[in-house]
């Protein structure tokens, strides 16, 4: 079977890419999703807050998932669920398993939009017993919102990212009280930024600079040991449920099996500002590239990738290896940036923003771009850099990069340390 564009993953990025491409491509645009319904993670995030930046709406996750699915279908994209891409047959052909059969699909362009998942307990190396009742937010929300299953009565939530508060809301809906949230950071990450229902309304005790060091229970969770990272003191907290939240990793299996160059920071494929990967004709979008930003930002990636896909289909000659492309790298405390390749003077990334991740809270950060030791740009931002959520950096900071000047370094400093003045950008 042959299509013009194959999109792997029917979440916000994949569906939005399909909606953008289908009317403009001279042939089939097919989205494959392995779940029973399209929509990705928002399907089971049953609280409002979706659709702000892409649809200019404020709706629930499930409503958002349905809306994006309808938009893609209305645009003429083919949508197929329960269809899992299990590997590559060649550089532009994939193996697909579905109840309709095992087949090879060939495409002129492939867009990977496989998203990201939370690291589960084993990947976080949390020792102890292996009782039931330890879930990621994803599993918790699947249980509660899609399967209406029981969870426990007292939960400890590990992490204080945006998604952690989403877990708290889900637990509350399931009749399970969050008795403690822990964060290894000294600032409560997304805490301050979280204003959907308001943290006061949820009344959840948060211990910063703490971590869960053991899980206890035979059969069912009976409690956890929590360690104060400042003093080393440990205490026992009784609970019957533990939610490991955040700590996202891209679902990069297909990207890696396809031999795409993987970025050591994001662990997703390396891309340029047009979201081209290292393999010609293979593109990527959404939280596979930046684990994780909000669903609307992932969706806007999908809209953004369409231009490069159309160029490729029209055989417009260019690419990430074209002369003039420079590499963007980050210095600590920044952990990663996406995209990693830009063309000075060329088109910017989605929303003209780099997306980055930091481990240090800075309320008034200044981002500085240097190339070969020389400062080429600096910008003071009106929004904080905070662990646990994506830090957005204006593309303009690298506008003056020299195409032949080697890698551009992005670094972030707090207000006091900052000596460089620059423009103040507005949030968003």
């Amino acid at each position, binding site marked *: 079977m042959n299509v013009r564009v194959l999109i792997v993953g029917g979440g916000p990025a994949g569906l939005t890419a399909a909606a953008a491409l289908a009317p403009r491509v001279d042939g089939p645009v097919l989205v494959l999703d*392995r*779940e*029973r319904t399209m929509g990705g993670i928002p399907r089971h995030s049953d609280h409002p807050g979706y659709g702000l930046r892409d649809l200019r709406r404020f709706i629930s996750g499930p409503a958002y998932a349905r809306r994006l699915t309808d938009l893609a279908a209305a645009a003429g994209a083919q949508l197929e669920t*329960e269809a*899992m891409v*299990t590997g590559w047959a060649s550089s532009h052909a994939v*193996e697909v*398993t*579905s*109840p*309709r*059969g*095992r*087949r090879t699909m060939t495409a002129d362009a492939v867009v990977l939009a496989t998203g990201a*998942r*939370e*690291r*589960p*307990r*084993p*990947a976080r*190396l949390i*020792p*102890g*017993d*292996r009782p*039931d009742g330890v*879930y*990621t937010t*994803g*599993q918790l929300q*699947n*249980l509660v919102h*899609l*399967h*209406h*299953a029981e969870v426990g009565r007292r939960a400890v939530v590990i992490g204080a990212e945006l998604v952690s508060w989403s877990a708290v809301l889900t637990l509350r809906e399931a009749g399970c009280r969050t008795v403690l949230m822990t964060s290894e950071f000294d600032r409560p990450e997304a805490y301050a930024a979280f204003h959907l229902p308001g943290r006061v309304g949820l009344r959840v005790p948060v211990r910063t600079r703490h971590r869960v*060091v*053991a899980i206890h229970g*035979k059969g069912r969770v009976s409690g956890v040991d929590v360690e104060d990272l400042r003093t080393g003191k440990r205490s026992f907290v009784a609970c019957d449920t533990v939610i490991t939240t955040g700590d996202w*990793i891209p679902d990069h*299996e297909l990207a*890696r099996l396809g031999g795409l160059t993987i970025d050591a920071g994001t662990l997703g494929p390396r891309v340029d500002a047009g979201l081209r990967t290292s393999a010609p004709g293979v593109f990527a979008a959404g939280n596979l590239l930046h684990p994780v930003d909000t669903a609307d930002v992932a969706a806007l990636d999908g809209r953004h990738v369409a231009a490069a896909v159309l160029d490729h289909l029209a055989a417009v000659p260019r690419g990430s290896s074209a002369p003039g492309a420079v590499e963007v790298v980050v210095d600590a405390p920044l952990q990663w940036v996406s995209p990693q390749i830009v063309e000075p003077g060329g088109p910017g990334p989605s929303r003209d923003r780099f997306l980055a991740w930091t481990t240090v809270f800075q309320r008034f950060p200044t981002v500085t771009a240097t190339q070969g030791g020389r400062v080429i740009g600096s910008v003071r931002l009106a929004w904080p850099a905070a662990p646990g959520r994506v830090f957005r950096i204006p593309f303009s900071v690298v506008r003056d990069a020299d195409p032949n000047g080697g890698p551009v370094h992005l670094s972030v400093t707090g207000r006091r340390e900052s000596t460089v003045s620059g423009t103040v950008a507005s949030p968003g």
Partner: protein
Amino acid sequence: MNPPLTCDVAVIGGGIVGAAIARRLGGTSLSTVLVEGRDDVGDGTSKANTAILHTGFDATPGTLESTLVARGYHLLSEYASATGIPVERTSALLVAWDDEQLAALPGLCTKAEKNGYDECELVGPDEVYRRVPDLGPGALGGLTVPGESIICTWTTNLALATDAVNRGVTLLRGRRVVAVDDGSLTFADGSSLRARWVINAAGLGADKIDNLFGYDRFTVTPRRGELLVFDKLARAKVPVIVLPVPSKVGKGVLVSPTIYGNVMLGPTAEDLTDRTATGTSAAGFSFLRSKGADLMPSLLQEEVTATYAGLRAAIDRNDYLISLDASLRYVLVGGIRSTGLTAGMAIAEHVAGLLSPHLDVAPRPDLPAPPRMPNLGEAFTRPYQDAALISADPEYGRVVCFCERVTRGEIRDAYASPIPPADLDGLRRRTRAMNGRCQGFYCGAEVQALVSSRGEASSYGDASSPGDASSRGDVSSRGGASSCGGVSSRGGVSSRGDASSRGDASSRGGAR
């Protein structure tokens, strides 16, 4: 109260060894009952070993273990071919990291020959790195063991137990033995079983059962072994089993591919007193990570998919302890270490030999063919890859567990099999569902619903749990073939209507 069951032989312990013995005796005219204290077979020591099919090259020459491992290697290899237990002939490589280890290699080669294994070869560092390019720096040389292989321990245990049940053995799950009185076993739930002979293959509990027979001759020390299982994307780094050179302080840590396509690092070795301490520890993780950093630094860049802790049934002597007491009509099969996976079928043969002066252990004619087991091996075709199978039955194209590519057809089959899972862990061992890198982020809720419905497809919000309570610790047997008194009168088998669905399941399995 139901009348007590009676039988010729009761085998205590549904691990590899007990299941192998039950299968062997199930092939005679004797009536045999396999008694398992937990809710499933293979749920103790047998589920968490390093899953290596051993040649026996490093056993102590002249021991019973040496003989039975070498014999078991061939028996299990043949049985694996017949039943579809996945085996990968990876070979092993012992790697020396210091002069003392390097000097020990020729002696190990000689020892292997004394154990009847003469295919080992000494190799230099260049050859070591040619075979495993991702090894950390500093390897001085190695010894190859071409016959060492990886195998699925879960399928092995289940195949042997299923074969036993197919041969007419009655399997009792959830029946922990609490008392022994002149051929009568009493279980924790108050029920009992009369047996002419009792075979103790209780693994970690073998010394306690031995005490019930009035013996006080050995102590099982639970030796905890923690393992880290790395992501499948690391598999290409570890093409062979990389073994440490044994030293006075133990066998050390190995890096091995797993039959499911992952990489395993471990085990630790820690003697404990608590026989239920299967938890993992921060110290264990940090020890394994530091070992891994030396052995293969790039491995630590990969994600950890799972962490396990298993308990080995170590005893205070350096060989298997297999002994028959004719006056008590009792056989002890104790001290079976991790080599018991390989040796199990040979142990069964050995036990049948010990019993032969006392019981008629001649095989009976017209035994059923060995069961054909679902393939859990990553190196062999699995249902999601099988176009013909999917077109014949679309349920094999409906992937439920994405990371491990487990289909709803396989989960349905597991519940329709002669020994259905008792819980989620049992389903994991039969299908690999939820064993993958996401650990349930995507599929956990769906799999849990299928566990509740015992494999019946359900739509969202319809996760009812019919028959959940009745499934645990129940009686499994092919019924008709059994000569065991009391089973048919219990009605436990026929009332669930299992007999017909089992037939379906085995024919589906056989067609694959």
